[in-house]
């Protein structure tokens, strides 16, 4: 369960960061920054959850 959670979270975060990079290329800088910030915050939350659970 823990391993599956880690792998899926890593996949979603990398996928979202890739989308953020794609958005930057397509001139939506604001959306790109928003998704990148949300991805990083979610990554922190996932790490916090893994450390405390």
């Amino acid at each position, binding site marked *: 369960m823990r391993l599956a*959670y880690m792998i899926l979270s890593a996949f*979603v975060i990398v996928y979202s960061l890739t989308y953020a990079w794609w958005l930057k290329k397509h001139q*939506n800088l604001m959306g790109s920054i928003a998704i990148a910030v*949300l991805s990083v915050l979610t990554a922190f939350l996932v790490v916090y959850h893994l450390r405390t659970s």
Partner: protein
Amino acid sequence: MIYKQETLGLKEGIAMVLIATMARITVTSMAGIVSKGFQASWLTVLLNGFAAVFFLVILYRLYKMTGCKGDLHHLVQQVLGKILGFCITFLLLINILANTALLLRQYGENTVATAMPHLDLEVSIWLYAIVSAVIVHFGLGGLSRAIRLFMPITVVGFIIIGIYLYPFYIPYRIFPWQGLGWQSILSNGITGASYNFLILLVFIFLPYFPRIETAFAAGIKGIALSVTLKIFLVTSYIMTFGVEAASESLMPFYEMARLIYLSRYFQNIEAILILLWLILGLLAIAINLYIVIYLFCRIFKLEDGRVVLLLMTLCVGTLATVPRDFGEAVMLDQRYVIQTDFLFYGIPLLLFMVQVIRQFYSKFNKNKSPSCR
């Protein structure tokens, strides 16, 4: 997903408002309402409903004054300007994100406690999150029609609970009907108004309604039905358990359902009623998640919400696991309700005041300009 040409009718609007505003009452909030309002809890719920109507009427008047045809984000930007409008919508987004996480946690905990005691809490939360994300993936059309189909079952289920509990009713338990007095009723009626905060979804999804009058009617009828059902449930709850026992329970809805006794051969129907609130919770979480993604896409100008859906589900699911235990989650939920009151009253009043002042100055300048020349 987000910008598809979907349409919402009156019945879909009513059903969405009903499910979104009823969701909290089936978890722990009913005990919270009784612990504050005592015997007059039903009156508190009624006042919360009036506050929601006040919120709706002010926003409707604003739409009429500004002639705006877009959604709430568009209206806020039109009245307050781009930067302040962005900040207000972002606040709404954060607030509804927190609401989604809290609902997810409470429904996950309730499912483990009532239906599946051997299930891991995290698995329960993630199951709710994933199923809600799948519902959201079908878009607003699928979501609203599913809710419309489910609404009559909810209403009938709640009425059945209330009716079949009648052998346990002791009507003296709702007296003295003023509870702790008028001051307490008024303060609780005003401060708990954000239980109906999601009534604003009719203005968030306004472009999908044929006319603004339809959205307004859906909001009014939905909140009227929701408040009527809540009053019915709260009164039944108090009459069944009495104020002291009712205010301490962590799973009021389940405890009401398990008391129902039909006959020797037809017992324990709470198993069916658990399914009822489980689906209600799933749909409510899905609405919340959809609103979060919709607002995120609107303020950051994204055309497709599907990519954000995965990230937002992960974020909400992980946020839901942050409280250490159920008690902390319930305490956070009560704090959330109090803090949301500021947004509930603040946003429409701020918008209304700015618009009135703007109109006053524009008239003043028009009247003044000929004499200056």
